[in-house]
């Protein structure tokens, strides 16, 4: 459907899009995800023919957006970041103009204008001035405009920015509906949004495509990201011995807990507590309900309780430490894509078998958020 090949765009010295290539099939909702300034809008502008590329090609159904602009543009409906509306017109007049410019003739024009007005639920405001409409309605007029001419692909640049939560939900529902009949590409820097609507996610960072997959696969993508943390009363030597004997575990390291506790008790412990908190929060999230909203709520709730309990635990630990016995060791185990529950079981029995208790055991699974942060932040040191 859409083929993007080696797309590059420079603004003077600034490289906005860097050798971007991907292919988009028909009939899905695609999410274009990236932090602000990653090159999302630039890419979309090039794909729709609003901007030229410094190098590379964009083909829509085999038609080059520059060489066969007319044919290619007829296949695309585009809503730029700021909806391109004429404030002095009513939605009806505006849509008629766009329809005419897209080459629709009388009967067909009226029919399609009626249809998109119905589809985007603009019936109530069709004769009001666009300048008097709320942001949500303006956004819908923008989407209605993109739908005219019945294009195969609809490209929406940050369609929910600046809307209130109810409007966001309405627009999302609309996009979901559109996804059943069109190929939809939408950009966003909001992760939960993309996760909620899209079948396929493209993550772009610093002008490069860093990932392109289904949301579930993206979580798996980060190999070695699933980890288990545990604290045991065994000595470091014993721990090493036990872990080396276990087949499931290839990679592990002892966290330098002692250093933290002894050198700067307060700060170190806090850091540890925060770390542990993050793990638990993430685990909570994994167990949590499907939507990200809920998971985030869970996380929020956990903050208060967990932090206090952690500090308390850490405090006890210090006391125990100062009274010499018993020594504890914290270990991080990277298990890749292995089943974390199974590994936890083996760990428990392995340590129990040697008569050493596990004081803490928690599994951390990579979430889409981790993938996003990892992919978009990881390249910083290289540059």
């Amino acid at each position, binding site marked *: 459907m859409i083929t993007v090949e080696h797309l590059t765009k420079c603004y003077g010295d600034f490289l906005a899009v860097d050798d971007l290539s991907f292919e988009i099939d028909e009939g899905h909702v695609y999410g274009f995800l990236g932090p602000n300034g990653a090159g999302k809008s630039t890419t979309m502008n090039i794909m*729709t023919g609003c901007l030229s590329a410094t190098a590379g090609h964009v083909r829509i159904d085999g038609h080059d957006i520059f060489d066969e602009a007319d044919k290619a543009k007829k296949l695309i409906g*585009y809503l*730029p970041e700021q909806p*391109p509306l*004429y404030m002095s*017109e009513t939605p009806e007049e505006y849509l008629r103009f*766009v329809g*005419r410019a*897209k080459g629709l003739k009388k009967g067909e024009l009226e029919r399609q204008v009626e249809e998109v007005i119905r589809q985007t639920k603009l019936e109530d405001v069709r004769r009001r001035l666009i300048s008097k409409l709320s942001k949500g309605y303006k956004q819908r007029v923008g989407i209605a405009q993109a739908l005219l001419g019945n294009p195969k692909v609809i490209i929406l640049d940050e369609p929910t920015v600046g809307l209130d939560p109810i409007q966001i939900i309405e627009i999302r529902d609309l996009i979901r509906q559109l996804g059943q009949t069109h190929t939809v590409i939408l950009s966003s820097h909001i992760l939960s949004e993309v996760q909620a609507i899209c079948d396929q996610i493209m993550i772009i960072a610093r002008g490069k495509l860093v990932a392109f997959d289904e949301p579930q696969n993206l979580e798996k993508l980060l190999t070695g990201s699933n980890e288990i943390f545990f604290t045991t009363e065994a000595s470091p030597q014993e721990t090493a011995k036990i872990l080396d004997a276990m087949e499931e575990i290839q990679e592990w390291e002892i966290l330098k807990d002692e250093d933290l506790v002894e050198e700067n008790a307060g700060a170190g412990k806090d850091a540890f507590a925060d770390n542990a908190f993050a793990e638990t929060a993430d685990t909570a999230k994994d167990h949590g309900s499907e939507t990200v909203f809920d998971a985030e709520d869970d996380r929020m709730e956990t903050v208060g309780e967990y932090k206090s309990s952690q500090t308390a635990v850490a405090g006890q630990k210090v006391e125990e430490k100062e009274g010499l016995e018993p020594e504890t060791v914290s270990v991080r185990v990277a298990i890749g894509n292995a089943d974390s529950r199974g590994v936890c079981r083996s760990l428990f029995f392995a340590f129990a078998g040697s008569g050493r208790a596990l004081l803490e055991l928690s599994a951390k699974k990579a979430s889409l958020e981790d993938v996003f942060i990892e992919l978009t932040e990881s390249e910083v040191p290289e540059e």
Partner: protein
Amino acid sequence: MIAVLRHELSIYFRSFTAYVFGAFLLVFVGIGAMIYNLQQAVANFEYVLSFVCMVFVVIVPLLTMRVIAEEKKQKTDQLLYSLPITTLQVVMGKFLALLTVYLIPLCVIAVYPLVFAQFGDVYLPTSYGSIAAFFVMGAALLALGMFLSSLTENQGFAAGIGVAVILLNYYSVTLAEYVSSTALGSVIVLWVFIILLGVLVKHITRNENLAYGVSLALMAVTCVTYYLDSSKFEGLIPEIMTKLSLFERFYTFVNGVFDLTAIFYYLTVIGFFLFLTVQSLEKRRYN
């Protein structure tokens, strides 16, 4: 193109611009007709038109200032780029809309000579020849105004520059008399323009070598020509200024000559500025 034309017309007639433009033109034609045709009892309607020319300084920028600047400001130009119409079609649609708005008061003006003919001897061919030339000259100024509007996203700026440029053009013949007509003076003025051209080339292409190359080459050419035959430069600048004046050519029509060269000149100016407008819009895709 038709879609853009219809859309532009609906915008002009919804806002007051089209009415203000028409009213201004008609008021001044009315005043002119009163002074020349009624009070002084002259039978030539073309004098009225030559009197009214000055109004273009105000009303052309008034009409053209928003034509592209506003699209840029409201970001609606993105819509135009993404629609399956070419930039040329957009520019032509907009220009034809401007012409339509301009043509409507002209239709009213075209009645004047007929009315006067009822009460005396009016030589109609010169009157209508002048009205035709008046239309073409106005069209050239509108094309210029549209180009200026495409350079900025600030309407006020577009209008200001428009007034300044048209005013300079209006007075260029008068100014030409005061400009140095010596050969050396001409060379110096040419150099200034060559340097400005170099700056422009540098600004557009971002290629310093090209800018220096073009400027130095042109300066060398003027130098060499000057040393070979300095008489070529005598009176050059005043001549150029006179030649470039859109208004000066119109007075030929007022004097009763239907000058095809002038019509051709106006059409060239229209074509030139429409071309520049298209380029200026296309450039936004390449920045």
